[in-house]
């Protein structure tokens, strides 16, 4: 990886940004520092405010409160044509009456560059997205993936400090989307421009980003690297939203340090060491939930050590099989096993719950 975000250098800041449409509060006191050269993803389901946040950064929406800063200078009142950012729109918003080259040249022409310089820039921007042979075509004759590339070239040709991408791969089919994820990541590494990427697709977020902002109801539920939000969810929402999770009830019995607690879980004799990465500290004796990923749990025969339960179903998922287990203590969970280990439906099994992998999560309001 060539470009590593420079943590000493904050490019863009959201500082206490709020946004309401009528009575509906879409963004609620949102703060975030984005570093130079970072690929950061705003991840959330539709209506979580991620696109609004991006549009506020681009200057298409005014925040109801708070400031947007670039290099420490407020730009909240700056119109979009003056901002150091460019946007890749969800449906590309290519100008249908222009050729590929004219679309890309639109920005440079407005900035009053010389003819030769514009030509050079357009050519290298199109080379970057592998479209240099198609510059004279009408954008209407391009496929979805090609339109996508034109949109990227059209934005990047202006050498923005920040590139804003609003679900840019949403309109592509799965295969092309995968391919474009790699391409985008490669482009970002090569040019080192800060990317702010909006998506509802967690897999996309996990594969592409340096950091992910998991959003819900206009707030950041967790900000962290893909590994952090996956392995160390800060609350129930993130645990449920990212990947698949089993949330098992338990009680906090001992504090080891601020990030490690012992939890006693129903149906277990010994208490278990679990991590905790939430905002507020845990109280001893508190009833809580512990998050386990299906691949962290192991199914063993009935005489094994762990939670006892009964097999409800098995679904094959490539090299692994997914079991749904109904627990004797109530509730159910999902666990993965290698394909070869087969248990019958209704068979009694134990689910081995290892120490040091569970994460305590609480509902965060």
């Amino acid at each position, binding site marked *: 990886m060539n470009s590593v975000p420079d943590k000493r250098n904050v490019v863009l800041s959201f500082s206490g940004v709020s946004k309401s449409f009528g009575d509906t509060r879409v963004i609620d006191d949102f703060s975030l520092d984005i570093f130079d050269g970072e690929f950061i993803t705003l991840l959330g389901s539709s209506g979580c405010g991620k696109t609004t946040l991006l549009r506020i950064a681009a*200057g298409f929406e*005014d925040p109801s409160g708070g400031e947007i800063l670039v290099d420490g200078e407020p730009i909240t009142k700056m119109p979009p044509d003056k901002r150091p950012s460019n946007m890749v729109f969800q449906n590309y918003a290519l100008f*249908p009456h222009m050729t590929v080259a004219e679309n890309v040249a639109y920005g440079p022409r407005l900035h009053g560059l010389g003819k030769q310089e514009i030509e050079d820039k357009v050519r290298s921007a199109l080379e970057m997205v592998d479209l240099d042979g198609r510059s004279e075509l009408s954008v209407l004759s391009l496929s979805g993936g090609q339109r996508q590339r034109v949109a990227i070239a*059209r934005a990047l040709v202006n050498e923005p400090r920040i590139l804003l991408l609003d679900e840019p791969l949403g*309109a592509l*089919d*799965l295969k092309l989307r995968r391919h474009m994820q790699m391409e985008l990541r490669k482009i970002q590494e090569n040019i080192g421009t800060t990317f702010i990427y909006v998506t509802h697709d967690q897999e996309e977020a996990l594969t592409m980003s340096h950091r992910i902002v998991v959003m819900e109801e206009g707030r950041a539920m967790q900000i962290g690297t893909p590994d952090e939000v996956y392995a160390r969810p800060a609350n129930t929402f993130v645990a449920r939203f990212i990947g698949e999770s089993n949330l098992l009830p338990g009680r906090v019995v001992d504090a080891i340090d601020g990030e490690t607690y012992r939890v006693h879980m129903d149906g277990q004799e010994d208490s278990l060491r679990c991590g905790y990465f939430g905002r507020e500290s845990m109280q001893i004796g508190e009833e809580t939930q512990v998050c386990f990923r299906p691949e962290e749990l192991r199914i063993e025969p009935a005489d094994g050590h762990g939670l006892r339960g009964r097999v409800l179903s098995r679904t094959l998922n490539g090299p692994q099989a997914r079991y749904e287990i109904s627990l004797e203590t109530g509730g159910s969970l999902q666990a993965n096993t290698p394909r070869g280990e087969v248990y019958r439906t209704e068979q009694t099994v134990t689910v081995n719950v290892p120490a040091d992998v569970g994460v305590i999560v609480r509902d965060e309001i």
Partner: protein
Amino acid sequence: MASYSATLKTSRKRGLLALPMIGYIALFLVGPVLVLAAYSLLESEYFQVTGTFTLANYQYAFGSEAISLLLKTLGIGALAAVLCTTLGFTFAYAARFFLGRWGTRVIVVVAFMLLGGSYLVRVFAWSSILGTEGIVNTALMGIGIINSPLQFLFFGYFAVIVTLVYVYLPFAILPIYAGLQGVDEETLEASRDLGAGFWRTLTRVVVPQSRSAIASAFAFTYILCCADYITPRLVGGIKGQMLGNVASLQFGGAANYSRGAALAVTLVLGIVAGFVVIYLASRLFEAAGRLLHARAPRRESPRPRRGSSRKMVSQHAERLISKIAGRVIVLVGLVFLLVPAILVIVFSFNSAPISGLPLKGLTTHWYSDVVAIPAFRDAFVRSLSIALIAVIGSIAIALPAAFALRDPRLKFGRFIAGAGYAPIIIPGIVFGVSLLSAADAMGVDPGISLTAIAHIAMGIPLVLFIVRARLVSLDSALVEAARDLGASGRKAFTSIVLPLIAVSLGTAALLVAAFSLDDVIVANFTTGTSPTLPVWILGLIKRGIDPRVNAAAVLMLAVLSLIIGLAFLFTRLTNRDEVKIGTPTATGTNSQGRSQ
């Protein structure tokens, strides 16, 4: 430094852009109509409207003579509208469901007839078909079936109704076809699959889905037929009078504006009352139908199925029959729509001075005759200049308004749109006599300016409609993209929005020009002593049989067809654009449900 959304907010005051249009409609449509209403309450003396209040005009207008004429007019209008709607539905249905890809092409021909076929030429065509020395009579006498001309063919309500149906049928076909396009063919198949026959499918599945299109086709043709005064004048004669005709004469030779105004007002009131009656009747009819339906014994649902082999045969035959029937209907309809206009063209080259059969010989001297008349050339030039003014004026007024109306949060948006569309809803005769009355009240002579004012007003709804439709299809992200790439608001408009609506604007301009060139109903009142081309031709027709009329009519047809042909080419350009721009959005919505 004003932020982008702040400029949007001030643009919520974009309502100001609609102000010229509101002002224009208030000044040149609402104002004149008020003058007309005032005139209807004033005395006329020695061809002059005085300041004295009187109800005498209404005593006349509500007198037994005028009222019986009003009732006849409304009856004829309703009958013609019913015929237009049913025939139009039959034609549109056949074109939509039995013709495959050819359906749209047929409809393009119908639209071309409507827009490029010239109203006046179409009315005139029937006067030359039905007249005592017209094609039907001369042909029948030539073969020896009759000895003297059949009088009922001409100068009577029969001729009026036939001509009205002919002239206004395309106005019914087009909206109904558009409505039927929204009816999914699979719903018809589903209905048949569930056991409904052809009629049941038609009345329970097709008609309910296209109800609003049928209703608007009826309403439109009803207003147009009731308010037509050229048709009864040219083919109705003494026995085929309609109220509009009598009212219009008060603004012509009789020069009793007050009485004419009162008649025009009662005509409008009558049309409105007719709508109320028709509406109530249809509600009653529906209620009665529901009652009958509720009482009817339900014997039909468990109808025994016929043997499958027999059913397949009958279905095959039925499909063949409906295919043939559909083609026959469309063919007959096209012949009905096209042949009269073609006859005018044919007779313009006939050396005999009478438009009768058999044809004598081929000549072009009617054309040279007509072109040689200075008044014809004057009228032609006048028409072209008025059309040009109408194009410029209506675009200048309606284009900003279309942008104002783009904002869904615009206050009084519906009212503003309504004002813009008013000139197309108000019957032409009422608009014409209102403008004439207003000019009279101001002491202004009618002429080119008054006609240009009228045609600008009539062009506004066209421009507004076409440009708004285009703006709706424009992705608002395009302007945002331009702003994002560094364009100022003004630059984004000139470099993105304007080029993208240019084709629509061109189409609108051509349509306005065609409407202006073709208009005789309004211009007949507003041109005074300087007639436009159709008004001049109308004068020639009124003076009696004159073979030069055919030639003049064909020349006008040629100009109109040229303009409309261009307009059609233009719309094909926009359609191609829109379809392709639409595709990524369409696939975008497909992938919504994925992931997580």
